């Protein structure tokens, strides 16, 4: 190479519940560190971590070209209810939408059920006369005089933010916009309107989303302001971008206005990390599996892009039960999260069934084997009893683990209740947690019309390499990649995120009444919105993908149908119908036949815009030729054989690209261990990833 083109120096910072992870990419190398999250001054932890990696790389703050940040602060504010006092202005007759929810109980049998408290209490919800109809027509004019009076009350009422949510505003936002003008004229408060934050049908979801946005807005704006000024003090003049829940980047200004879009941005980084691995290896169907201390997250990645959804539920209050949290309707990387992590506690229920989680031993007291006073068995204890973890070499030797304490805990809470010795009891615990994860993954795939066993798994997070092989056995998956840097996967993922934004709008159109001009106008508006956000971050070329969410008239669940990127003409309704039928058959096995004049309708349009990235250097998966044997071995329980087997123990750093080790084996490294069960071998890849591969798959 004759000319050196300097690649930009990029830094990713992920604030998680326990740790703040920093990843720095400079001159082709990756530097990373973990520091404890600082709850009172989250920006301080970022600066502390930056000091570490910049020192490692021999760089200063001024050398950074870009900083990409994701944070769990917005999520935590919603979970812990530490947000602003919000005034919610809504349509007369609908004061209680966010309190009445779906009028159902998320647990059929629990008579002492407690439903989540609404984000905005009833006394702070203000109904105003005025009504838009289902077709966007005005049924009753907005009562502007009442709004003027209300604005005065809000101004002096001690509120920190205002949310406005009117019925059918996704069809016609005029009333919401006018109400914002009137309120903003009298109040010096941030005002969020539902037709901008979440222009989707279904009032409970939309109203809750706009309230959540208002709820976290002052806090996030303060935090982002402090972060920027501290960075400037340190001499970092580079732009700062935020990762959003859909997995793209937005400016700090946009984030401060729509902070609800930051919810779940950390896990989104993990999915992008996995998507990047998928692209490097050219894997078009991947399932990412991220298992940490308290939860496991599973996401489907197709053609190098994580699956996205239009709404999700945060802050589940009861054992991650569906319906026990609050809905947020924004574009989001769709993943399933269950209470299964290394710290999840195992117990036995009334039927003598082993259960795991969602309660977690966390870092204090930690699993029993940490010897910090924990008495109840965690997944880590079971892993230790089964020999999957080396007690002398856990977390780089930072914590010495006690196998005796782990056995005592496993016996006390599980073994003695089921008449099982410690080893089978520990096996039971691991089987149950692995089965729970497998079931969640399988159901998630079905909900997306996919077959899980067609995928290659990408596993990361501290606990995932211990469980990935068994999970693959259960799911019928043949190959699993464990990339290097898996411990700080989300922060690395941030560095790979595109400048991207998804704009959505509900617009109900029957194909029989398909009006190309109307659709073209709606899509042009969405494209302008989406590209506008992306343009704020990049001067490069932008690509966009348009999707219609469609269904048979009468159905309630829409499926995504990709649309061509061009204007529509009169003949296009037929083509759309064919595309829908094909997509429906892919999802549910067969299109519905035997129905006469069954209409098809479009419910929502989405435009996703993002900058075009150069594809990463392509790697080929190698199945390995050089068979390597371990120097040491210890007995490790093998689930398929149901017994302890002599198992090779191999340090990761001793493996060279192309080396293949026969399972059962354990590949050990500083942060974690990769367990290779007897149906698998493991192969070191050129980029340092480990590939778990079924024995029968050879070169």
């Amino acid at each position, binding site marked *: 190479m004759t000319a050196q083109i300097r690649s930009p120096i990029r830094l990713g910072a992920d604030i998680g519940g326990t740790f703040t992870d920093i990843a720095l990419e400079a001159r082709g190398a990756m530097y990373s560190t973990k520091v404890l999250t600082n709850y009172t001054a989250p920006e301080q932890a970022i600066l502390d971590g930056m000091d570490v990696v910049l020192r490692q790389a021999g760089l200063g703050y001024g050398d950074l070209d870009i900083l990409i940040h994701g944070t769990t602060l917005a999520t935590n504010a919603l979970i812990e209810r530490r947000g602003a006092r919000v005034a919610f202005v809504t349509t*007369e*007759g*609908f*004061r*209680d*939408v966010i*309190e*009445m929810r779906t*009028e*159902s109980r998320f647990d*059929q*049998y*629990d*008579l*002492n059920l*407690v*439903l989540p408290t609404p984000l905005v209490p*009833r*006394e702070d919800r203000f109904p105003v006369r005025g*009504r838009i*109809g*289902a077709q966007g027509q005005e*049924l009753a004019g907005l009562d502007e005089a009442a709004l003027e009076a209300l604005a005065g009350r809000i101004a002096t009422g001690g509120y920190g933010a205002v949310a406005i949510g009117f019925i059918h505003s996704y069809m016609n936002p005029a009333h919401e916009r006018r109400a914002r003008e009137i309120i903003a004229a009298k109040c010096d408060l941030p005002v969020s309107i539902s037709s901008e934050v979440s222009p989707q*049908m279904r*009032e409970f979801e939309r109203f809750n989303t706009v309230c959540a946005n208002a709820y976290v807005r002052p806090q996030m704006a303060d935090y982002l302001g402090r972060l920027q000024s501290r960075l400037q003090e340190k001499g970092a003049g580079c732009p700062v971008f935020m990762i959003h829940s859909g997995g793209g980047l937005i400016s700090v200004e946009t984030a401060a206005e729509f902070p609800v879009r930051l919810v779940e941005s950390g896990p989104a980084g993990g999915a992008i990390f996995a998507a990047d691995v998928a692209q490097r290896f050219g894997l078009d169907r991947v399932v990412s599996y991220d298992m940490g201390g308290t939860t496991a997250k599973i996401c489907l990645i197709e053609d190098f892009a994580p699956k996205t959804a239009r709404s999700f539920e945060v802050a589940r209050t009861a054992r991650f039960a569906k319906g026990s949290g609050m809905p947020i309707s924004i574009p989001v990387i769709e993943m399933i999260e269950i209470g299964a992590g290394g710290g999840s506690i195992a117990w036995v*229920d*009334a*039927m*003598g*069934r*082993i259960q795991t989680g969602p309660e977690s031993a966390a870092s204090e007291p930690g699993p029993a084997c940490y010897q910090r006073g924990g008495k109840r068995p965690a997944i880590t204890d079971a892993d230790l009893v089964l020999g999957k973890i080396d007690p002398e070499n856990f977390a780089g030797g930072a914590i010495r683990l006690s196998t005796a304490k782990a056995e005592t805990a496993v*016996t006390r809470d599980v073994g003695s209740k*089921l*008449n*099982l*010795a410690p*080893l*089978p009891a520990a096996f*039971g615990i691991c*089987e149950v947690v692995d*089965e*729970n994860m497998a*079931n969640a993954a*399988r*159901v998630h795939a*079905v909900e997306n019309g996919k077959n899980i066993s067609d995928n290659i798994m990408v596993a990361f997070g501290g606990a995932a390499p211990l469980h990935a092989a068994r999970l693959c056995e259960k799911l*019928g998956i043949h190959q699993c990649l464990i990339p290097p840097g898996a411990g700080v996967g989300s922060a690395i993922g941030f560095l790979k995120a595109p400048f991207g934004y998804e704009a959505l709008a509900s617009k109900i159109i029957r194909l029989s009444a398909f009006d190309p001009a109307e659709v073209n106008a709606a899509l042009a508006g969405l494209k302008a919105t989406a590209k506008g956000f992306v343009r704020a971050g990049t001067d490069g070329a932008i690509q966009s993908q348009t999707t219609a969410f469609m269904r*048979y008239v*009468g*159905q*309630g*669940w829409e499926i995504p149908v990709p649309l061509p990127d061009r204007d529509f003409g009169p003949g296009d309704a037929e083509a759309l119908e064919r595309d829908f039928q094909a997509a429906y058959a892919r*999802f*549910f*096995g*067969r299109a*519905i036949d*035997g*129905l*006469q004049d069954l209409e098809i309708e479009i419910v929502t349009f989405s435009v996703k815009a993002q900058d075009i990235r150069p594809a990463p250097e392509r790697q080929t998966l190698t199945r390995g030729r050089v068979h390597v044997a371990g120097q040491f071995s210890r007995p490790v329980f093998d689930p398929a054989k149901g017994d302890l087997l002599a198992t090779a123990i191999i340090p990761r750093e001793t493996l060279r690209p192309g080396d293949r080790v026969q399972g059962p084996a354990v590949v050990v490294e500083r942060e974690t261990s990769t367990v290779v069960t007897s149906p698998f071998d493991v192969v070191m890849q050129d980029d340092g990833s480990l590939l778990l591969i079924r024995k029968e798959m050879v070169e």
Partner: protein
Amino acid sequence: MTDASPDPTFEIRMQVMWNRLISVVEEQAMTLLRTAFSTSVREAGDLSAGVFDTEGRMLAQAVTGTPGHVNTMAEAVLHFIAEIGRDNMFPGDTYVTNDPWKGTGHLHDITMVSPSFKGDRLVGFFACTAHVVDVGGRGFGADGKSVYEEGIQIPIVKFAERGVVNHFLVQMLRANVREANQVVGDFYSLAACNDVGHRRLIAMMEEIGLESLDALGEFIFSRTDAAVRERIAELPRGAWGNRLLTDGYDSPVRLACTVTIAETVNVDFAGSDPVSRHGINVPIIYTKAYASYALKCVVAPDIPNNWASLAPFTVSSPVNILNAERPAPVSVRHVIGHMVPDLVLGALAQALPGKVLAEGAAALWNIHMSVRPVAGGQGRRAEILMFNSGGMGARPALDGLSATAFPSGVMTMPIEATEQTGPVVIWRKELRPDSGGDGEFRGGLGQEIEIEPLPGHEFDFSAMFDRVGHAAKGRNGGKAGAPGLVALDDGTALKPKGWQHVPSGRRLKLSLPGGGGYGDPVRRDAAARANDISKGYVSK
């Protein structure tokens, strides 16, 4: 610590497969939710799904679903086995019925059962149930004089044999129902969801190397049976009675029961009023579903539903409104059926003082609207169904849940979706202040709903409401909840049952009942009272 069992991994493998079966039926239910046409299924979750052994005993059931379907479906499969006959079952078959006495209590619920074959060996059955939008006849309402007026009756027949759909049945159906596409679409959805369950089950059996579900069934049933019986053994022995009055169609209906706790728990409904002339009668299968649901909530809420968890709960009754025989009209059997838990819990409260919640709104306030343009005008026609809930009774240490379905497990539909379905405007759907019964713990609030046809339209609606004449009673000194009201906005009072008219320009006003309070009101915490006032739950 005692000796380990001879094959310790057997225990673990059985537990894992039990989990897997529950996951299989959850997938089955999810497929139904995703593909169904009727709002009652897709928005409200009025469905159930389960897997059964070759004897027709339920092994596992999806968490998604509502008790009225779940517990009835548990018995329905036995009828299918008896009527189709083992020799007449082939891979690719699906059987169907809407027989109220063999299915789930009214013609609107379609139950489908599919045998699951591994090779040519029968290994089990999948069943599912869903409420479809129309079955012809008089429509969803209480006005039929016999079941023959209530719609098309489908005896237990094959919907598909060896994978080939019975087109004669589909044609009959199309000719008999108002919304043929939606109904036929739902038939396909039901069949498809059993298919998903079957494929997952066979994949699991192949992966694990199972040839039958016998050993797994034995494991599930023995574990469940032991757990439920242990709970029953902790209850006091004896017999306790209760009775309550409901609105009925045009005159009050008395319901009575005796709960007897011994080795098992039996509920007898002797003393309840005779069969009604109107479609509010309940087949015993539905009565039993809600009686066992109520008992299970109190006795064994954490034990998963299967044949063994339901077996220790039995019912008996002479022929009466809670054990109506063919050809009694049963279309809105849910209104009286939803009262059964309050009835049974009232008896159980005497056996277990301090443990049982107060009465609540109980019956859903379902409304079916038939909207049309005014005579000579232009506009749209539509059939619209809404599910709405009043307040739940206060609990022994908690206020009642406001506007929340109990005992039913269904959800409401978003009003924005309802207004997209047809030409109506819902002007109000919010909590109804002062409707929760006072007490140390307050009953849940009902809600207020106002519906007007869009200009140029009018509608008829089928009222299926209760607790208008008979409020939800409090417990342990708690006060009754507010009764419901049905009226037009000009003050015209309307009836709680039957088809009625709302002219163009008028609003239908529904005030849904509140739940009863628990405990003496003087014991209510001052902070709780202040909170009720500041939030406007209570006006003074």
